[in-house]
């Protein structure tokens, strides 16, 4: 570790992994409820489990991004963090606020939670992914601003690199577009229109800047390739991302009451969205092939390469699969969407966080890389989780195709529930694959505790 203050990243990474475990457990509960409908009812109804599953995902990814920023920015800026104390205080505030929110979801009915937390002052709850109570949303803004202040001040007083700049742009964008979560008009079409300004412009916009910066940082470290080359690639990738992704928002404006020209704008631009992900894959492999050093952390390199490939498959290929308006007319809101969501989030944002954690954690623990034994176990977890998510995606895609066929294309369409009964085999296979994913995750955590000979101190 080059700067003492980078150590504040450690609790962020640990919290991220802890919440990740919670996310997967609730995912398994939901998966079982798909086939055993009354499982855990009425203790944990499906909607509660889903809220916990998706909110934990968002929160742990944010923990990962913040931890990554605290690790990267001092090293990039060649100076200590502006205020490590502020960073630690924000860690505890965010963790406690997040935990209380999840407890709130589980302990009281959602309508009661809304009443208790001031939803009547400003109605923002009850919209997908933005279910958090008003006070949690305000808390997120406060933590984000304190975090951004801390990071920005560090960059301002130190060396200014392109990686820092892109990371900052992504993180500031994240905070700015979250503000649309406070806008919830009665007009449902306007509500949905601007809801996407948070949701789409996060995951298919500014988050990709964060992803690119994190990947570029790790690739510089593990390959030793010249910074000029890597940062040039980074700019090219994020140019492609935003040029396609901003107007690509239009692929959500096909069927929600918005003007029909979006079917053209959305289809054409979002059809190009796989290109930046393809570039990212080529980038990662190219840099590793042109490496100038043999970094002892093989596991981190594997995660970095995996991020490129899986983000391209999940976000790129599976996104393209249903993004053209004439196709989306049939697939909109089916298991096809769920299939895409799972592989895209895993491939892009889960994997880039695990890449960063894999690279940084050994250094934070005082060594350049973990022992061979530990790395071998980590690589097993890589393959188990990655192959599981591929199969989860394939099973959900199969379920989705059948669902579209039986419920939407057929001359004699079946009802929603009748269709669900017919495709339950695929839900069972998805659930068992989910169990394998959990095993992979347990091995991943176990790899942190495997001893053996450390690689030279960092």
């Amino acid at each position, binding site marked *: 570790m080059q700067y003492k203050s980078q150590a504040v990243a450690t609790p962020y990474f640990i919290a991220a992994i802890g919440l990740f475990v919670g996310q997967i457990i609730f995912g398994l509960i939901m998966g079982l409820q798909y086939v055993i409908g009354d499982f855990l009812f009425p203790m944990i109804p*499906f909607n509660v489990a889903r809220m916990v599953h998706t909110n934990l995902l968002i929160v742990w990814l944010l923990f990962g991004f913040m931890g990554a920023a605290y690790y990267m920015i001092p090293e990039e800026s060649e100076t200590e963090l502006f205020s490590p104390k502020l960073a630690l205080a924000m860690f505890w505030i965010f963790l406690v606020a997040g935990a209380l929110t999840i407890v709130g979801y589980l302990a009281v009915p959602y309508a009661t939670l809304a009443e208790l937390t001031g*939803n009547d002052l400003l109605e923002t709850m009850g919209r997908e992914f933005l279910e958090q109570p008003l006070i949690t949303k305000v808390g997120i803004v406060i933590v984000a601003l304190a975090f951004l202040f801390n990071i920005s001040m560090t960059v301002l007083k130190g060396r200014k690199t392109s990686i820092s700049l892109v990371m900052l742009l992504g993180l500031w964008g994240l905070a700015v577009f979250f503000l649309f979560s406070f806008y919830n008009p009665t007009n449902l079409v306007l509500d949905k229109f601007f809801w996407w300004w948070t949701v789409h412009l996060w995951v298919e916009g500014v988050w990709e800047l964060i992803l690119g910066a994190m990947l570029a940082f790790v690739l510089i470290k593990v390959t030793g390739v010249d910074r000029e080359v890597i940062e040039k690639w980074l700019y090219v990738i994020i140019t492609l991302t935003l*040029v396609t992704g901003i107007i690509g928002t239009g692929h959500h404006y096909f069927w929600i009451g918005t003007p029909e020209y979006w079917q053209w704008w959305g289809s054409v631009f979002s059809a190009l969205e796989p290109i930046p992900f393809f570039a990212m894959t080529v980038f990662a492999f190219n840099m590793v092939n042109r490496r100038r050093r043999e970094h002892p952390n093989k596991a981190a390199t594997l995660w970095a390469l995996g991020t490129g490939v899986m983000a391209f498959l999940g976000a790129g290929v599976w996104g393209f699969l249903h993004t053209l308006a004439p196709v989306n007319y049939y697939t909109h809101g089916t298991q096809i969407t769920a299939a895409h969501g799972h592989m895209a989030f895993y491939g892009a944002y889960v994997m880039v966080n695990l890449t960063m954690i894999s690279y940084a954690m050994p250094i934070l623990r005082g060594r350049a890389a973990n022992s061979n034994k530990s790395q071998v176990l980590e690589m097993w977890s890589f393959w188990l989780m990655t192959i599981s998510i591929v199969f989860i995606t394939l099973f959900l895609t199969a379920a989705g195709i059948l669902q579209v066929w039986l419920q939407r294309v057929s001359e004699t369409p079946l009802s929603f529930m009748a269709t669900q009964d017919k495709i339950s085999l695929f839900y069972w296979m998805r659930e068992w694959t989910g169990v394998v994913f959990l095993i992979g995750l347990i091995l991943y955590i176990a790899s942190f505790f495997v001893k053996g000979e450390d690689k030279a101190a960092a």
Partner: protein
Amino acid sequence: MSGAFTKSMARNIFFGGTVFFFLLFLALSFDSTATLPKRDNRANLTPAVANGKKIWETRNCIGCHTLLGEGAYFAPELGNVYPRRGGDFIKAWIKGQPSGAPGRRQMPQFNLTEQQLDDLVAFLKYTSEINTANWPPNIEG
């Protein structure tokens, strides 16, 4: 990439491209919001609809159902449930939950008043009259 293409060129293209396409997106969004009154059924946004939307949100209906295709995929699409089932059926259905049928997916009992049920139905009726470019493909949603 060859040496002729420098990092600062890449950075300039990034800023130029991003600003251009973001402005284009703003222009399209501005045009959309100007066109919406013709499509979004705002003439029928009554106080009952507003109350119904609040019921919809504070019971986290989107956690199981889709509405105009967005939400969770655990339970049926409700953007067109009004023409599919009618108001009386919707009210009776909500009142009758959970079914308690073993192994079947269960919907919670929300203990809504008659007024709240009427408001929710008003919201679902308003939603079904939004011009969605003929989506979903058929009445089953």
